[in-house]
């Protein structure tokens, strides 16, 4: 298609240059898999390198205890809950918003789906009831957040901060600040079940990540999310219902919180108003380290997943090495900065070649 310059009355040489550039760009396209890998590896080289370095450190300092497949599964399992929420958060941040209430929504969902009444109903019918309750609570909280932000005009930082306080308060009231233990047969079994030696939770994480990637990069919804975050005015002028879209994004992250709540309930066999305390910062950090712009308009699910893995692996390596929490936290700061700087240098070198 590079010959189609008829009609452009431009001078030949200038056009040739342009055409060459264009041809070069399109030449890569057929080889999609390679292009995909190149672009996503390119954007995330630094992160991948940081993760690898971390693994090398882990393998050297903790040997087999780190490199065992059991340990890899432990890391993945620990990453699963944060990971599912982080995928949802990637959409919120890409859309130019933020959600501080994810931890509280998770707590409320976990409590609501493990109340005596819910468990009773679940026992009488099927544990799927608990799943519905958790997802509905998550989506409901997300809906309130979204409506406040999009139609109430409350900045998302404040709206979700308010939700953080309220949802946790409500979770405490419902649970009477007691840890609610699950004894619905089937529920825990299902989520903690192993398939080919890998737990269902890990599969859920992987599936959510893939679904998130497709949604962000291959669907109208995802493209609109980027548009809404990148230039809301332009999105509006293009006929996108920015407000409705914003609401949907918050509902999406709410759903992710509901799902994560189910996973955490299964893992801990409890619902509790203290679940997910401080989760918001972990999640946002993972998303932002992964290269999603806090100002909106650019999001990377692959980056987010690597971000989550970096944090989980970090804790794992520290624990295997029996480091104190204080040392962990001192080093964690340094490592975060190092990872980001590395990522930057490598990404800029990559784009300039």
């Amino acid at each position, binding site marked *: *298609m590079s010959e189609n310059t008829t009609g452009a009355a431009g001078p030949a040489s200038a056009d040739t240059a342009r*055409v060459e550039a264009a041809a070069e760009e399109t030449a890569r396209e057929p080889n999609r898999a390679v292009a995909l890998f190149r672009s996503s590896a390119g954007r995330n080289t630094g992160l991948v390198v940081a993760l690898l370095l971390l693994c090398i450190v882990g393998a050297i300092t903790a040997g087999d205890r780190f490199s065992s497949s059991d340990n890899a599964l432990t890391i993945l399992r620990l990453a699963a809950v944060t990971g599912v929420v982080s995928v949802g958060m990637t959409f919120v941040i890409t859309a130019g918003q933020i959600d501080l209430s994810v931890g509280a929504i998770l707590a409320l969902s976990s409590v609501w789906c493990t109340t005596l009444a819910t468990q009773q109903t679940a026992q009488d019918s099927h544990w799927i009831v608990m799943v519905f309750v958790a997802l509905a609570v998550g989506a409901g909280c997300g809906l309130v957040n979204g409506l406040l932000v999009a139609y109430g005009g409350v900045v998302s930082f404040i709206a979700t901060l308010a939700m953080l306080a309220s949802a946790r308060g409500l979770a405490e009231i419902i649970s009477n600040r007691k840890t609610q233990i699950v004894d619905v047969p089937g529920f825990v079994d299902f989520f903690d079940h192993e398939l080919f030696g890998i737990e269902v939770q890990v599969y859920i994480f992987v599936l959510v990540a893939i679904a998130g990637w497709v949604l962000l990069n291959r669907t*109208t919804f995802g493209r609109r999310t980027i*548009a809404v975050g990148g230039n809301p005015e332009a999105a509006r002028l293009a006929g996108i219902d920015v407000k409705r879209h914003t609401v949907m994004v918050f509902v999406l992250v709410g759903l992710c919180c509901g799902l994560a709540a189910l996973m955490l309930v299964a893992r801990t066999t409890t619902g509790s108003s203290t679940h997910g305390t401080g989760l918001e910062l972990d999640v946002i950090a993972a998303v932002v380290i992964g290269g999603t712009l806090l100002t909106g308009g*650019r999001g990377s699910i692959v980056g987010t997943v690597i971000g989550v893995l970096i944090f989980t692996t970090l804790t794992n390596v520290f624990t295997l090495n029996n480091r104190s929490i204080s040392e962990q936290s001192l080093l964690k700061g340094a490592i975060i900065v190092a990872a980001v700087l590395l990522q930057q240098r490598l990404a800029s070198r990559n784009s300039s070649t």
Partner: protein
Amino acid sequence: MSGIVKEFPGVRALGGVDLDVRAGEVHCLLGQNGAGKSTLIKVLAGVHQPEEGTVVWDGAEVSLSSPQASLKAGIATIYQELDLVPELSVAENIFLGHELSTVGFSQRHRANSLTRELLARLGHSEISPGRSVGSLSPAGQQIVSMARALSRDTRLLILDEPSAVLDQEEVNNLFRVIRGLTAEGVAVVYISHRLEEIRQIGDRITVLKDGRTVATGLPVSETPTAELIKLMTGRSIEYVFPPRPTAVADQPVVLEVAGLSLAGVFRDVDLTVRAGEIVGLAGLVGAGRSEILETVYGARKRSTGTVSVDGRPLRRGSVTAAVKAGVGLAPEERKSQGLLLDQSVYSNITVSSMDRFARVGFLNRAGEKHKASELTTALDVRPAGVTRAARTLSGGNQQKVVLARWLLRDCRVLLLDEPTRGVDIGARTEIYQLVRRLADSGVAVVVVSSEIEEVLGLADRVLVVREGRVVHEAPSTELDESKVLDLVMEGNVA
């Protein structure tokens, strides 16, 4: 449209405007900066809701309550401010809001091939549909905007100063496309400050002044330019360039640029400007003129070369150093690079000379406002109040605010990138005279403009830039438009 009234807090932008557009015609909208042209078309596009007035579409009264409603009715708009999402690809921007999809999944291949067709129709098949819009030059982005308007099933196409960032070739291209559309019965509303374009493309003209229709339905062919100018400004103005002084050659060299390069963009640029001299840079869009100015200014880190002002070399890549040495830049994109849109006009004007109004860091705000009002009055900025936010000014008036900033600063060197883009005819003459007056007072001026006429008329000496190299340099008296065009395109005279 009839009796449209639109008020912003404190401003009556439209005070009863009538406009009727017929199928298959190009209807031109004229008016000075701030006359309300953009506001009027935003009402048509459903962006603004008018306080009063009715819009009749196809014989029936309609309410255009949102951009969606307008788009659905078949009204597509290319806005004065670029309205693209920089992070999305060309194809994605074009189909934003009316994506090609099957149950929500993007049909990227179809979108890409349709995009290629659209871009080819606009004569720009070199733009790859997968490229992200943020990496395109302003001109490239304008083309994407146009492709987007064409991608819709359009019955009325509105173009708000589309030619501002385009060079002659591109404009001709655009006109060809517009003629093709009108032949199919599409109605076009065309806004521009360049009257010669109106002559080429327009059928009928409506003139706005201070938010009111002063004339409508004037046939282009029968209305003399002088009358249009009179209608727009309420007075007769001659579109003139100020006279050049005779002897600048004996003045001291103020700006000296030697062997300046920026990797991948331009190479080996030498430039000397004497006190009182105006040097013009001519070239096609994308030739690298903006980058030359920005590199001289320190906003980009030069790869090689030296820049000195009054004989003192400037530190590489430091705007602060350049400003301290007395260099000023009026950037190409005033919204994103020039203005603090939410700040008041006066603080936009004084931002580079703040220290002058400060004693041990404390600002004398009354002094700032006073000085700023003097400048806005002198430059005829409308409305004149200096405490309103810069965002609420029309495009041309915003440009004047940026110029006022450097007037206040008493620069040694002034770098002007497209200083009259989007500026109306009356103000344009004022700006020319202003620039000349500045030069006469000993300032060295460098002007970049895509209008060859402007470069030739304003500058004493012209450098022609082509693909990142200076291909010719001559006093403007030795050049004429066709010669410059040749140089710009072929570079063969060099």
